[in-house]
């Protein structure tokens, strides 16, 4: 865990394909696209009010990625008093690339991977913007 990184938190997406895509996008950002600048934490920890998790989302800019209209990631970050820098929704990206319709839920299929990649690029651009404007400074 690095405490100078931007946090990218996805929904836990256990029931829907867009949830899976949200998580795949998050992993693409933190493991491939911007590993030096980003990290994640368990959304369930925020739900439970874990003090360490709350301190992290309050001290670091946090980007949420949500897979369904319930917006669990954003709602839990906001309920924790987090420093919400940006909130993404899979459906907004999907509307721009409707040919990429994910079907699988537990692990991404090819369409899910591609949709997540498009979304991950958008999140990475937001990470770059936060760096460029200095908004990622504690």
């Amino acid at each position, binding site marked *: 865990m690095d405490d100078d990184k931007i946090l990218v938190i996805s929904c*836990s997406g*256990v029931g829907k394909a867009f949830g899976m895509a949200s998580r795949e996008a998050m992993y693409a950002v933190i493991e491939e696209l911007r590993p030096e600048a980003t990290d994640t934490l368990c959304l*369930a*920890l925020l739900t*439970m009010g874990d003090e360490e998790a709350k301190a992290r989302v309050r001290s670091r800019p946090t980007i949420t990625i949500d897979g*369904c209209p319930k917006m*669990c990631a954003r*709602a839990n970050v906001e309920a924790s008093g987090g420093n919400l820098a940006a909130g993404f929704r899979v459906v907004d990206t999907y509307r721009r690339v409707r040919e990429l319709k994910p079907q699988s839920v*537990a*692990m991404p299929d090819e369409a899910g991977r591609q949709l997540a990649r498009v979304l991950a690029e958008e999140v990475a651009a937001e990470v770059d913007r936060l760096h460029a404007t200095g908004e990622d400074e504690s």
Partner: protein
Amino acid sequence: MPSLPKKRVGLIACGGEELVEGTLSRVAIRLVLEKYRPEDTVTLCLPLFLAGEKGERAFARFYPTIAVDGCRKECARRATETFSAPVAGVVRVDTLLAEMGIALRPAWRRALDEDGWAVAERLAEAIAAQVDGIVGSRRGTQPVVMSAGPGEVMAVDAPCACATQVPVSRIDIAGQEMELIALMAIFDEFYRAGKRPGDGLGQALLEAVRIYNTIPDELLPATRAALEREYAEFCAGRSQA
């Protein structure tokens, strides 16, 4: 009987995005939902307990629930018990895999390879065994739906409880606001059967409500009276509509 979501075992995964065990918890319950016990299980995203509404928070009061946790923090169990009701069972992924002598691979956090899927299957079998213990299944742990192969088993229509919310109403009973599951469905059932206030329906309403709710003995008379009152209002609203 009222039209309600089918009574199944609820599965809540911690889903921990930081941990390999979190990914395995999520995949394992999907396997149970879609492959091992599709007729007996339903799920709900854990963060919905906070982000959702009263229907989500009634989840564990309606479904006997198994928490599948990835680490010692046991977020799934604690969230369920904090926001809903005590769980019927717990599966700890980290301790179970340690007992099996299985070493985790960091890459499994994002994607499972063939070995990772095999681990998820073993976890799913353990969860299915707990499901059977709760529902008294006559089946073994063999899957009831065959998969196409690792990573290709996931259908999209396995039951997710956020789309079939447990219906909850709040009514005043002896000066206390109490949540009752399925109340409107029961009222609707009675209304469509032609039963109207004044027919001495209090006891029948109470018996129907007690199928889905635990009512303390000392509150039974007050609950019966509250149900008669609420049902009269329900019928008045229907007749005006």
